């Protein structure tokens, strides 16, 4: 499905964000990409849809190369890749419906999109997705009137209406509370399995990743240092990815994460 070979990105100024990354993600697999800040996680997924131009290497989606394309061909390739962002990246002054339909821009002509005359099939699909994401009836609300969790749901709808083969998800839960984070991850997992999508999810919350994905890839300083199932993520591996730290301190909270926020609340109550 997604095949990445020797992907390298050197930023101006000589910072090497990616250093020869090889990665394959099969259809229907939800893969989490973990690693410390600055390891190149965002750069990696942005090189896949070429929002960031890779310095070297190849990206192939569904057998079709993405690297080397230009203009219209690149736009056509981007239609097959839905992207979901950390701070939602909704167009704040547009409505929920306009934001969702903006996922169809690659399939719609300029005048039709400017006049908001989208194909009826697109509008039907938008309504279906909005309802599926639990936002029924909110289609005419402006994006800046929504809560964080609702915004991320709109972001997911916008990515899915592209009818993508691959989802690129950049820190989907970093701005959300623990409960909403889980709901969003659950929605992503369900939608990916419903539609047999491959997905790369950049995530900081290792415990959350372990809870929801089948495969975890660890990135450190632009190189893949771990690739395996969530169970294989041992203390040694975490140390290799993130550096020295007493990982077991967090372990009890990870095992029954539901209790963790409650425990914090209880401590706050006791401190009063």
């Amino acid at each position, binding site marked *: 499905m997604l095949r990445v070979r020797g992907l390298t990105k050197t930023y101006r100024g000589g910072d090497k964000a990616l250093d020869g990354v090889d990665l394959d993600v099969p259809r229907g697999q939800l893969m989490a990409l973990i690693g410390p800040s600055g390891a190149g996680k965002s750069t990696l997924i942005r090189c896949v849809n070429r*929002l960031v131009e890779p310095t070297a290497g190849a990206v192939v989606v569904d057998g079709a190369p993405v690297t080397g394309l230009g203009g219209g061909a690149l736009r056509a390739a*981007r239609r097959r890749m839905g992207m979901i962002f950390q701070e939602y*990246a*909704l*167009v704040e*002054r547009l409505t929920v419906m306009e934001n969702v339909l903006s996922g169809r*821009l690659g399939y719609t002509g*300029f005048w039709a999109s400017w006049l908001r005359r989208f194909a009826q099939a697109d509008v039907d699909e938008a309504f279906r997705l909005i309802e599926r994401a639990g936002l029924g009836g909110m289609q005419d609300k402006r994006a800046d009137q929504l809560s964080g969790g609702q915004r991320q749901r709109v972001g997911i709808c916008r990515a899915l209406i592209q009818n993508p083969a691959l989802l*690129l998800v950049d820190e989907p839960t970093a701005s959300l509370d623990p409960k909403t984070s889980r709901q969003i991850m659950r929605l992503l997992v369900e939608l990916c399995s419903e539609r047999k999508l491959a997905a790369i999810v950049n995530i900081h919350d290792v415990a959350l990743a372990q809870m929801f994905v089948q495969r975890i890839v660890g990135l450190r300083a632009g190189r893949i240092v771990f690739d395996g199932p969530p169970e294989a993520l041992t203390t040694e591996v975490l140390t290799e990815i993130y550096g020295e730290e007493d990982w077991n301190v967090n372990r009890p909270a990870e095992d029954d994460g539901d209790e963790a926020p409650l425990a914090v609340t209880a401590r706050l109550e006791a401190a009063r």
Partner: protein
Amino acid sequence: MSAGAAIRRWRPPPFITNPWLRLAIYGGAALYLALALGTLEVNWARVSEGLVRGWAFVAAFGNPDFSSRWEEIYEGMVESLTMTVVSTVLGVALSLPVGLGAARNLAPLPVYMVCRGIIAVSRSFPEIIVAILFVKMFGFGPLAGMVTLAFATIGFMAKLLAEDLEDLDEAQVEAVRAAGASWPQLMVYAVQPQVLPRFIGLSVYRLDINFRESAVIGIVGAGGIGATLNTSFDRYEFGTSAAILILIILIVMAAEYSSGIIRKRLQ
């Protein structure tokens, strides 16, 4: 934890770290101000004389004369308003491509340089000088005034639009680009919603500036109410001048008030 711990004082770090340099700069500025004030020659006898004449002018405001030159005032006002509206519409329309080209994050370097150049030229000459030039080119009358105001509007609107565009939230643009949008779609879906309310607000503000400027450039022969105002000064008809100024103030206030309402509606 010891009871006699020394008090640790804290002051914000000074803007200029070197104390001697700081003293030299502040002292130098004060000295310059004192010397500059010393060079001003004020002829107090002339001022007291002028105060009386000035007062006669201010007193005319208590007794504005709308009737004796009403025809000229009315024609001048209509001409000014026409100039204002036409030049604003034209200038705003032309400022759109120039502003887009002058935003470094949207335009390639050569386009950026050309558009910044247009803005610099338009902004570096005061309206009155541009008006003199266009009066020479097109002759006396409102055409010269209209071209002047449209020209000045391009510089003003394009500069402010370009600065807004450079402050765009890149994430929103990136998200729309990631969906496979083309460049014009990017403009309409990710850029326009971010800058449109302020752009409309600024256009209304520019309308109000252009009306005021139309009164000024009329003095050099570029048509409009300024010409009428100038004539009334030349004839020492301060009552008529006062009437014109009052009308200008009323119209500017009305424009100010309505632009406030429009901007509030747009958030």
